């Protein structure tokens, strides 16, 4: 896994205080400190970020695109999870 390019890290940026962290890309670095500094230099040169999270790419568990249909299918027939499924009496407000 580890060649002379160092470890692959995934970078998450928080665009503004309070917003969720979003994936922006990856980079190679040899340790956490270097990864953090590289992430700053690579991904926040124009103030895109207010906070950075970095995670080793190998630590990420991802769903498999080929199973996607059957994996997510159980949610498809459950329309009653959406508020528009329900009939409200004529004139009902704030609900």
């Amino acid at each position, binding site marked *: 896994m580890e060649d002379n390019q160092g470890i692959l890290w995934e970078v998450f940026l*928080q665009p503004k*205080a*309070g917003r*969720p962290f979003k994936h922006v890309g990856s980079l190679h670095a040899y340790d956490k400190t270097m990864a953090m500094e590289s992430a700053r230099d690579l991904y926040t040169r124009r103030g895109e970020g207010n*906070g950075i999270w970095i995670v080793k790419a190998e630590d990420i568990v991802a769903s498999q695109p080929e199973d996607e249909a059957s994996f997510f299918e159980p949610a498809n027939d*459950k329309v*009653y*999870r*959406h*508020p528009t*499924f*329900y*009939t*409200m*009496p004529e*004139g*009902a*407000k*704030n*609900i």
Partner: protein
Amino acid sequence: MAKELEEEDPIKLAAFQAKIDAEIKIEPKDWMPEKYRIGLIRQMSQHAHSEVIGMQPEGNWVSRAPSLRAKKILMAKIQDEGGHGLYLYCATETLGTSRDEILENLHAGKAKYASVFNYPAPTWADMGAIGWLVDGAAIVNQVSLQKTSYGPYSRAMVRICKEESFHQRQGYEIMANMAKGSAAQHKMAQDALDRWWWPSLMMFGPHDSESAHTSQSMKWKIKRETNDSLRQQFIDKTVPQAELIGLKIPDDNLKLDSETGHYSHTDIDWDEFWNVIKGYGPCNKKRLDHHKKAHAEGQWVREAAIAYAKKQELKLKTA
């Protein structure tokens, strides 16, 4: 005991307050006063426990729901509440506590949950009243908490509010249908409203003047609106909804003040409130015992899962 505010570094404390005042969210790795951290753990774990304990009165009706449609809806709602508990437990853990510790505090009676879940749900109309009133009250509170100062709590609230929107509507739909059904159904709906109205108002907690944590929580923007103001919002939007479906709120002193646009009402029976908080409500023991039992019965599942994970890891290493 948490460090007193006077013992905190005054420069850090001032910078922290400045951030809060500027509406900048606090993130898990940021510096924060001990009291902020402890106060959040208390409030967030209490919120998480409420989601989880709140599954019990509704779980009681899954096997007796009057139609397949009703049963599927009820299961979807309960599943959501379990999810809400999980979002909130994880968000609480970012403050440096553990799931085990959080659950221990619940089981030892040190952590509370919303007192409303200590009331029984004897009829199907209770499923309507809980969704309409209990979730309705929770929504008012949670909409306000979307702006709480702690980032992970705020983001969990945004997600939860989105999911809650069907909870209240499914409850109101049940109530509206029963209210226009047979005389017996109408009566059952009215009876459920009579029993759930006051406990729902109590969900917002004691009067501002009696609330131990309110002023510091407001200063740190953990809470964004006071108990009394949230309670008033709930009353103002719920009374017309009751009138529309022909049900009567069990309070003869409800009156719309045309100048303020707010309803005035009878004061809550605070003796009942404190009684239930202290553990003497109709179902306190039952709810907690059930949670302890379910947790103990899950012990072998957790053990098996750990053993399996270890085995998988070994397989990877030797492969």
